[in-house]
Each structure stands twice: as C-alpha cells, then as structure tokens.
C-alpha cells in the first residue's frame, strides 16, 4: 500500500507542476492553455533527442530542454499567438490553443523525426536506484519528481512573494490596465509568465514521459488530470491545485493496488480513467450549487470597463439588405454544385473520401449549432458522434435494422445524454463547460469506446451501407442529401423564434430572462438537437467506412474537428461542408502527390489555421463571403456594408479560394497518440 501512496505522490507531483503552469497562465492572461500537452510533449521530445539520440548527459540535456528550449518556446508562442488572444472570446482562445496542440507536435516531429520508440528516459541516472523505506518501493525517478515539485514551489513562492518581478506578476493578475498605467509593460511581464509556464510544462513532460511514454496520448492523460485539479481550484488557486493534484495522484495509484481491484478485472482501469472526471464533477456540482461556477474574468474593474465588445466568431454576423438572402444562397448553390461535380467526376477512391468528408460535415453541423449558434463551447460532440456510430452498428448489425433507420432512430437514443449534459452545465461559465465536456468525452472514450465489445482491437463493429448506396458515388449523394436536410433544419432553427431566443440567451441571460425567455428550455433545445445531429453524423460516418472504428472518435480528434470548423467559420453551413471535405481530402492529396515525409503537413497547416483565428475570429469562409458581398454591393452602387460597415453573411457562403486550411485524412490526426486503424474509404490500400 505504501508503495502505491509513494508512487501516487510522485504522479501527483507531476500533475501539480502541470496544474501550476495552467493556473499561472490563466490568471495572468485569461488563457486556458489547451496546448499545454503539446508544449510538454515538445520539450520532452527535445530532451529525448538530446539525451537518447545524441547521447548528452541527462542533466545537460535537461538544462537545455527545460531551462533553455522551453522558455524560448513559451516566449515564441506568446509573441506569435497568445498576446493576440487577450481580448478574444473564450471560444477563440480555446480554439487557438487547440491549434497549438495540433500544430506543435507535428512541427516537432517534422523537425526531429517520428519517434519509433516511445519509451523515454527520466532525469534520474540509469539503471534506476531503488529505495525501500518502511518496506515500500521508491525509485530515483520518483525522488526526482518530489524534488522537482519542491523546487517549483520554493522558487515559485519565492519569486512571487519576495521579488519585484513577482510583484509585477501579481499586479498583472489583478489588473493589466492599472499595471500598464503604473509604468510596467504588461507584455514583458506576460512574456516572462509564458516562459515560466512553458518551463513548467516542459518539466512535467520530461518527468511524466518515463511512466506514460513520450506520446501525445501520455501527455494528454497528464493534461486531463491537471485540468481537473485546476477546475477544483476554480482556475485560480495554485495551493489548492497542487493539493488536489497530489491527492488525485495518490487516488489514481492506490486504485491500482491489487488488494482493492484485480488488475485483470474490468473495474480497475475504468476507475483509474474516471478519477479526474470524478474530481471535476464533484467540484463543479459543489460550485454550481453555490453559484460559484460562473465565468471568471481576468483583470479588475478598469480592465472590464475598457474591454471591447466582440472578438467572437458569431458577433460579426448580421443581416442587411437584399444581399442577405441572395448571395449566401448563390454561394451555397455553387458550393453544392462543385461537390456534385467532384463526386461525379473523380475516381472512386476520391469519391469515397468526399463521401467521408460529407459525412463528417454532418457531424460538424452539430458544432455549428451548439457552438456557432448556442455559444456553448462543447468539446464532446465527437463523443456523441461516436455513440451514434455505435448505436447504428448495434441496431443494424446486431439487430438487423435497416441501416438508415438505425442511424436516425439510434441517434435519438443519444439525445438524453446530451440534454443531461446540457442541464448539468447550464450554470457554468464557458471555460468550465469546455473542460467538463472535454473530460466527459475522454471518460466515455476510455470507459466505452475502447472497451470490448465496442473496441474489437480498434476495428469496432462492422456495419453495412444501405443496398441502394453500396458504391461510393451513390453513398456520397446519400450523405449529401442527409447533410442538406440537416442543414435546412439548422437554418430553420437559426431563423426561427427559437433561434432568436437561443441568441438572446447566449448574449445576455439576464436580458433574456427578464424578457420572459427560459434559459433552461433554450439550452436544452440546443443541446438535444446538436446531440442528435452529431449522432446522425457519427452513424453516417460509420456507414461510410462500414465500421465504427472507435479510435476515430477520440475527443482530441474532436478538437481538431472543431478547429477545422471554426477556422472555416463556426456559423456557416457551407463552412461545415468545406471543412469536412478539406479534412478528408487534403491529407489524401498530400499522401498521393507529395513525399511521405510531408504526410503530417496537412495537420500542421490545419493547426496553424486554427491559430490564425487569433487575428481573424470570424473564420475564413464568412470572411471571404463578406468581402464578396461588399464587392457585389459596391457594384450595385448601394454604398457598401450598411450602417457603419456592419457586416453581412449569415450562413452559406462561397468556396474559399486561396485558403490555407487544414485537415488530415479522415484518419484521426496524431493529436492523441496512436489512433490506428485509420478510417479508410476502401478502394485503395
């Protein structure tokens, strides 16, 4: 037992370092760094390269990787990205940091090469020295971890409490505006904060790698636990975050004590997976009951007073004049025509990919609804898509239902889960909602999708397409039909009274409530409908690839989905279609026509696309749509863009020419570790 407690304290110490990093950047900049795992991975990867590949000594490699490379990485990211996010909406901040989590590992792998062996060395000398205090087992890696946390705490407290730099950081946390007025440059302080945060991320990455493996998957587990600790600490308190992280580590390890649960039994791994979610759930319920889980905003009264409105992808959307009804329709029709021509004209392999893209676009419509319209930053739509795929396969394959009936009826079964989640998170601020839904997705992934009978060595359950759409071409048209029907539903919702109520609740709950609108009803409506659409998308995806392929529904792949969509435009129907097709098509184009060493470039491009949201939160498709509308209006001579340059664009738009999009084949990008087998469309190996 004591051995497990000691191991738990070691694991908890790593969680604590990670949680400290997240809290520091959040309180000082208002950015919750979802790219944390990528930063940890990158530093760990550099350490590995120096130590294992180039045979540097561990201390020297650690100094260069953690104390030199990591702060430089943090400063570079601050300069290139984070400083532009300060006044952006939570959604843009989240998606931009997702972009980091997608692009950074790809950039590192492109630079240092793919890692064949994920077993990483630690900071302790090999072979590991093992101690036996009170008969328990304690190795040198664990001792180093304790030391790491101790150093972080001592140095952190010392700097923050007793130095001028610490004073400036604390001033920045309280009010950036007042800090600036007092003659201190907030940018310089922030630069230092991000350097320190990246150093902590790097240290956590190097420390966790020996136990979890030097993979994004291993770093993701670390990040999930750190998220939970930070949520329990209400995003602000480092001491609480550290304490909870240590406790979480101990609980995680003690649950693996064979006396409690057999390692071969079904419970141990599931309980261990559920530890972060349990901590987070208990804390959130407590805070929600106490009314303490609202949006936390950084800065003081002056910061809030001078903070501009907007910065949200959907805030720029409005309607005006005749162009409102015509141009999006024309652009949408042109986009659809292009898709039809592609389906009819391309070879079967490419048609299959496009069918997959359309199926994905259906799932992306759920993000359009819940994120774009409802303003709820849900990061688990992919999980509902996965549940839709599983229920479709269960009903069609195991119960003999017709495939399409299985899709549409099976998807109904997922709605209660979405509604329940919607009700649970109704009183939470945006960031909390994002973290809860992401953790929920991870929980379902580990408890359901990766367990038999659903997993089946990664291939899932096979499911046959409808008889009239067995070939890729017919199936692509079937998927396009489903997409159009659901798109019309989304457009109808947007223009309906319910859609307006949804917008009202999104932008001002007090304003909506005093108008007589029910926040609960509205959010339940959005949750239920978006969940259904996601599940239908998952079902169609399963039909596309004729298997459920559970790994394809990893929540971190969902982050990539969301990023692709938001990069294109979170409220645009056509952006969903374009995003889905790009997501599947571009990696295949790279794989077919470019050297294999560039295979990860599409994912890198996509990540960079999401990062670009920091400067263009509207999204690529609406932005070009707006520009096109302006050109048309000028030609008509009616004076441009309405009152004070109010923008156009409410949905359907034109095909984005010259865009730097994203994607990766419909196989899941490498943001969450190994995700094979890939979703393939058949027809080509």
């Amino acid at each position, binding site marked *: 037992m004591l051995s497990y407690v000691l191991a738990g304290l070691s694991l908890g110490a790593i969680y604590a370092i990670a949680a400290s990093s997240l809290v520091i950047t959040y309180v000082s900049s208002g950015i919750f760094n979802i790219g944390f795992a990528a930063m940890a991975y990158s530093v760990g990867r550099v350490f590995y390269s120096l130590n294992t590949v180039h045979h540097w000594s561990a201390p020297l490699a650690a100094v260069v990787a953690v104390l030199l490379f990591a702060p430089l990485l943090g400063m570079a990211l601050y300069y290139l990205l984070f400083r532009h996010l300060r006044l952006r909406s939570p959604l843009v901040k989240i998606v931009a940091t997702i972009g980091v989590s997608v692009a950074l590992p790809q950039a590192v792998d492109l630079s240092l090469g793919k890692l064949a062996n994920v077993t990483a060395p630690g900071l302790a000398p090999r072979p590991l020295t093992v101690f036996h205090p009170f008969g328990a087992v304690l190795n040198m890696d664990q001792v180093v971890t304790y030391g790491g946390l101790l150093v972080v705490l001592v140095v952190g407290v010392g700097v923050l409490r007793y130095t001028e730099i610490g004073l400036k950081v604390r001033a920045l946390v309280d009010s950036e505006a007042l800090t600036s007025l007092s003659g201190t440059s907030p940018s310089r302080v922030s630069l230092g904060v991000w350097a320190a945060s990246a150093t902590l991320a790097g240290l956590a990455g190097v420390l966790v790698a020996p136990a979890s493996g030097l993979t994004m998957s291993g770093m993701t587990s670390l990040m999930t636990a750190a998220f939970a600790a930070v949520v329990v600490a209400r995003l602000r308190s480092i001491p609480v975050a550290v304490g909870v992280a240590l406790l979480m580590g101990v609980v995680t390890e003690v649950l693996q004590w064979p006396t409690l649960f057999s390692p071969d039994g079904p419970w141990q791994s599931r309980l261990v997976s559920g530890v972060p979610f349990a901590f987070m759930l208990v804390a959130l319920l407590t805070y929600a009951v106490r009314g303490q889980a609202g949006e936390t905003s950084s800065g003081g009264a002056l910061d809030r007073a001078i903070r501009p*409105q*907007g910065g*949200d992808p*959907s*805030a*720029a*959307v*409005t*309607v*005006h*004049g005749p162009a409102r009804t015509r141009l999006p329709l024309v652009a949408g029709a042109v986009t659809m025509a292009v898709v039809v021509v592609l389906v009819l004209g391309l070879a079967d392999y490419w048609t299959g990919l496009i069918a997959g893209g359309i199926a994905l676009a259906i799932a992306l419509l759920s993000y359009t609804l819940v994120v774009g319209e409802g303003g709820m930053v849900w990061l688990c739509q992919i999980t509902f898509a996965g549940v839709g795929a599983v229920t479709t396969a269960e009903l069609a394959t195991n119960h003999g239902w017709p495939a399409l009936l299985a899709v549409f009826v099976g998807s109904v079964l997922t709605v209660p889960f979405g509604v329940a989640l919607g009700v649970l998170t109704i009183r939470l601020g945006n960031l909390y909602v994002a973290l809860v839904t992401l953790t929920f997705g991870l929980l379902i992934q580990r408890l359901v999708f990766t367990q038999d009978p659903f997993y089946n060595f990664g291939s899932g359950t096979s499911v046959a397409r409808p008889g009239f759409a067995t070939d890729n071409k017919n199936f692509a048209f079937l998927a396009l039909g489903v997409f159009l029907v659901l798109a019309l539903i989304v*457009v*109808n*919702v*947007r*223009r*309906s*009274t*319910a*859609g*307006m*109520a949804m*917008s*009202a609740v*999104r*932008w*001002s709950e*007090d*304003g*909506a*409530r*005093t*108008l*007589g*609108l*029910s926040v609960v*009803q509205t959010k339940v*409506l959005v949750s239920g409908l978006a969940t259904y659409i996601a599940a239908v998308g998952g079902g169609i995806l399963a039909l596309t690839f004729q298997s459920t392929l559970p790994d394809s529904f990893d929540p971190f792949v969902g982050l990539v989905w969301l990023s692709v969509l938001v990069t294109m435009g979170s409220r645009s129907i056509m952006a969903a279609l374009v995003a889905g097709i790009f997501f599947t098509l571009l990696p295949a184009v790279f794989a077919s026509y470019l050297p294999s060493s560039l295979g990860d470039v599409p994912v890198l491009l996509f990540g960079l696309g999401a990062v670009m949201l920091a400067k263009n939160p509207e999204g690529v498709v609406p932005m070009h749509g707006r520009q096109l509308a302006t050109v048309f209006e000028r030609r008509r001579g009616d004076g441009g863009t*309405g*009152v*004070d340059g*109010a923008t156009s664009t409410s949905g359907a738009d034109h095909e984005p020419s010259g865009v730097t999009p994203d994607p990766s084949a419909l196989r899941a990008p490498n943001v969450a570790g190994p995700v094979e087998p890939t979703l393939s469309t058949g027809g080509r190996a």
Partner: protein
Amino acid sequence: MSTATTGTTTAPDRIAAHGVTVRFGGLVALKDVDLAVAPHTIAGLVGPNGAGKSTLFAVLSGLLKPAQGTVSMNGVDVTHRSPQKRASAGLARTFQHPELFSSMTVREHVVLAHRVRHARSRLWTDLVTGRGLRRPPAAETERVDDLIEALHLEDIAHRPATGLPLGKARLVEVARALAVDPTVLLLDEPSSGLDVRETEELVSTLTEVVRERGVSLLIVEHDVELVISMSDVVHVLDFGVKIAEGAPSLIRDDPAVRAAYLGEDIELAEPRRTEQTVAVAGGDNTREERV
C-alpha cells in the same frame, strides 16, 4: 399592500416591494425598503451612487432574491417567482448597462420580444412548421415598425446590437421592453448616454405609453430634474434606506434628499414624511450599520 384609487375602483399596485432587505455578505445593500408603483403612474427612484437603486430593480425583476421582505405584482406575491414568470405577468425592464443580444439586429430584438408576448408558441412550433423561413404576420411587422419608428431606430434597424452607441443601445432596450406590452416597466437610467433631443423624444414616447396604454413606469435616474419633471411620485434611496417619498415638488426641497446628494450634515431621527397621504418606510438612517 398598497393600493391606488382610480375613479371609483381601487386597483392593486402594479408592483410593490414590502420591507425588502438585501445583504451582500456584510454589506446591507437594501434595508427594509417599501415601494409601490400604482397603475397608470410614473414613479421615480433617485439616490446617489451606491444607494441601492439597481439592487432594488434586480429584486423587483426577480434577478435577486431578498433576504427579507416580499415583492408583489397586482396584489399577488411574486417573491419566489422567476424573472420569466414576472415577465409573463407583465413586467419588463431595462438595465443600467444595456443587456443586448450582440449578434441580433435591433429589429430582431423587437421581433423576439413581441413574439415572446404575442406568439409564444412559436418558440417551439417554428422548429417544425418552418415559419421562421417565411414572412412574418402583417400585425407583427406593423407593431415592430411602430416601435422602431417611435424610438427613431429606423436607421439602425438592421444593424447588429454589438457596437451600438450607449444612447442607441438604451433606446433599443426600451423598444424591446415596450414590445412585450408590459403593464409595468422598470427603466434603469434610460436617459444616460442620450443627447437632449433624444431625451426629449424618449420622455415623450414614455409619457405617451403611460397615457395610451396604461403602463406604469418606475424610473431610476441620475438626472433628478428629469425624474421630477416626469414622475407622479418620487422615492429617494440613500445607502440602501429609503429616506423620502412623495410628490416631486416636495422631494426637491426635502432636507434629507439634499443631504444625501450634497453631503449636508443633517441627522435624521426618523424617515421623512413629505406627503400626507404616503407613508414612508425605512426606519433609522444611521450609516454606521450599513456596512
């Protein structure tokens, strides 16, 4: 419960607070406040910064639960009713900091408010009937156009609410509030941010609403002269305590009010009675016990 006499009948107050106390931790934001708004009247609520005016509005509209006391509408206790239920009962309000729906146009604000009141079922039926994709009914269009015209919002009707100047934002809130055809309307600093002409037009519109539609108004304003010129009765709060209530002409010269606004050192042993027919609640007025 207070009542108002109109002709030969006695109608209950449109909205009334009875002994309302609100505490934020150790801070007493409102202490035993009574206030009533009779039908077809305009009541003013004034007081220096921090007097508790917006807090009282939050209590009246249901956004804040009082620690003690009750709120009634038309004689019915609504203390435990949600803001939505109070809105359904005829209450509408505006906010000190306009609570607009950023991505919606000015016109959509008014349309939504109108439908919430007059076509509530459309919140759900639109989803299956597709009515959202068709032209709205002529009656709705006419009413919405009337309101937009009355508040001179035609030029910005199709502009999104985000980025509107403060004055325009306030007018949009007023239009939205009027679109639900309220029986009682709470206006939190409606003239703030408006120029002189806009203020005059707003006053004219509001007066007309009271006269023609029988709406009761409760107005919070820093512009005391405006309140006095519009109101039938004025309530004065200071540090969470109601220190005066009465006809505008009497309130203007009330020593307690002058003390509250100008800092004159006048001790009040008990609440002031400035009009014989109106009882003033409030109790003691010592500032020490407020924090």
